[in-house]
């Protein structure tokens, strides 16, 4: 009998995300095991414990998932897993902290596609703002957009230093060129959005970041993407199901269109599903992070 597939789900937080649990089950893993409060220095031995107990056939049906809320830590953990492998005792590892990698990959891919179709432009031609830019989804969105060539700025809602520090440290680590900004007031937001081409909204669920009043300031706006599915949505006038629908509230940016949370969520869902499923079907172990997620997300949106 074929061994059951097992996904060991490592999480630095006290609990796993129910989102990832549902996704992993639905991708076909038979057994999910949560490991909580996992510290980086435990990852090496947890990985080796996972690889040495199943033999060559069983090992193909074993995977590691890395969750949490911290993008840097998740990448460190992914690297620690990789180092702990002893081929042929080697298994696939997928990092997707807070689902941020797949959400961000889906968000950027959807917006990129919409930009291409409706405005005939590429990300590298664009100035991009990421609101909620210092949270897990925001940072990953920023890094992906920046690596795709966009002139990208992470926006924090409280502290300029947070945004600048994040930008600097991820630039060093991933070779991107992020900038940092802070938008505490409506006026700050209006000033920031005046000239940009793309706005990503990755702020907390249920918080409206851009009102119609603020949106009036945008003159070059082409595409907005919002990942907030809980009303009020991140951008006034956007609908969750928008997939390139006009953003009429941006009255001084005719042609601006919107990508809503369910449109992004749809791609994110397919993407995370395919990545988890890939871990079960691949013959050679894979190490998956936001870069792999974005490549696959691009495939998914272009095939649509």
């Amino acid at each position, binding site marked *: 009998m074929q061994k059951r597939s097992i996904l060991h789900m490592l999480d630095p937080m006290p*609990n796993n995300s*129910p989102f990832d*649990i549902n996704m992993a*089950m*639905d991708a076909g893993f038979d057994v*999910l095991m949560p490991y909580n409060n996992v510290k980086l220095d435990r990852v090496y031995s947890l990985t080796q414990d996972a690889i040495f107990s199943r033999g060559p056939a069983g090992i193909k049906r074993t995977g590691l998932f890395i969750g949490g809320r911290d993008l840097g830590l998740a990448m460190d953990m992914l690297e620690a897993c990789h180092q702990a492998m002893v081929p042929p005792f080697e298994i696939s590892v997928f990092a997707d902290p807070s689902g941020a990698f797949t959400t961000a990959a889906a968000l950027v891919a959807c917006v990129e596609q919409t930009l291409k179709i409706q405005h005939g432009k590429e990300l590298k031609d664009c100035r991009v703002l990421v609101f909620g830019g210092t949270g897990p989804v925001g940072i990953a969105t920023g890094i992906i957009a920046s690596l795709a060539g966009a002139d990208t700025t992470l926006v924090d809602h409280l502290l300029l230093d947070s945004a600048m520090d994040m930008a600097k440290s991820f630039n060093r680590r991933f070779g991107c060129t992020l900038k940092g900004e802070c938008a505490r007031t409506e006026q700050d937001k209006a000033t920031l959005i005046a000239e940009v081409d793309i706005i990503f909204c990755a702020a907390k669920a249920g918080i409206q970041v851009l009102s119609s009043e603020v949106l009036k300031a945008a003159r070059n706006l082409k595409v907005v993407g919002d990942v907030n599915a809980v009303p009020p949505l991140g951008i006034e006038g956007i609908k969750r199901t928008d997939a390139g629908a006009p953003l009429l509230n941006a009255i001084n940016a005719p042609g601006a269109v919107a990508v809503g949370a369910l449109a992004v969520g749809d791609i994110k869902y397919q993407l995370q599903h395919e990545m988890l499923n890939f871990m079960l079907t691949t013959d050679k172990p894979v190490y998956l992070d936001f870069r792999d997620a974005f490549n696959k997300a691009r495939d998914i949106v272009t095939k649509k």
Partner: protein
Amino acid sequence: MEKPFILHMLTTAKNLSPFDVNMAMDAGWVSALPYINVEASEVQGLVQDAIFSRSAKNLKRTGIFIGGRDTKQAMDMLKTAKRSMIPPFEVSVFADPSGAFTTAAGMVAAAEHELITKFNTTLAGKTVLALGGTGPVGQAAAVIAAQAGANVMIIGRQLEKAQHVADMCNSEFGDGKITILAGADADKAEYMKTADVVFATGAAGIELLSAELIASAPQLKVAADVNAVPPSGIAGVDAFHNGTPIQGSNSQAVGIGALAIGNIKYHTQNRLLKKMLNTDKPVYLHFEHAFEVARDYMETSR
């Protein structure tokens, strides 16, 4: 292919109860995942994470269970969970902290059954004492009995604490529509003079009602004890009693022991967990639903 049934099991404690895990798997949930040390403030985030990763169709195969030890906390978490749903992204939630809701439901349903079959009456207007009633099972039993029309008193060693618990039950669980009173354990001889039904829900191994007090009760009809560890909470009622006459009772009272209650509790929890699997519209289950199901079980299984 149909998606597997997933039950997300939240608890404020540092572990789930293995009882609940077994129950969930046996009711047909394919996967039961633990979320421990959950704080009230985390419930919304966890719920919304759970609902947005499956289609509306497959959310019917997804559920949330709320355990823990504290009844009010569990009810608050249930309310928060319900508020966090974004239809059609919505799943069923079942709160049963310490198994207290289903245990209490089983006990009250068993007592009611004895009242009906042996005394040709109901809980309405009866005087019910919840001895050692400040804990989760006592609270839930008091509320369920009060909602069924009984005059309920929660008896504790410290009157002040019993009063606090009674007030909390009335406002939090009874919506202000019930009036559970509080009494001191030291005065229970007095209360036994008018008691029709007694629930013993204190800590295991403590006798809450002596043979003398049983003998002195002129209108006692049913005495139920959830304690399965000797000595029993009520003198003369052992774990196997199931409508068995209590020796020494001058009012022909019958006893219900822990195993009889446990059996109804088991079926009640099983049915509620199955209800979550089979319902077309999401349900939010707590002690009231547990009592409905326990009553139904008593009617259909005997």
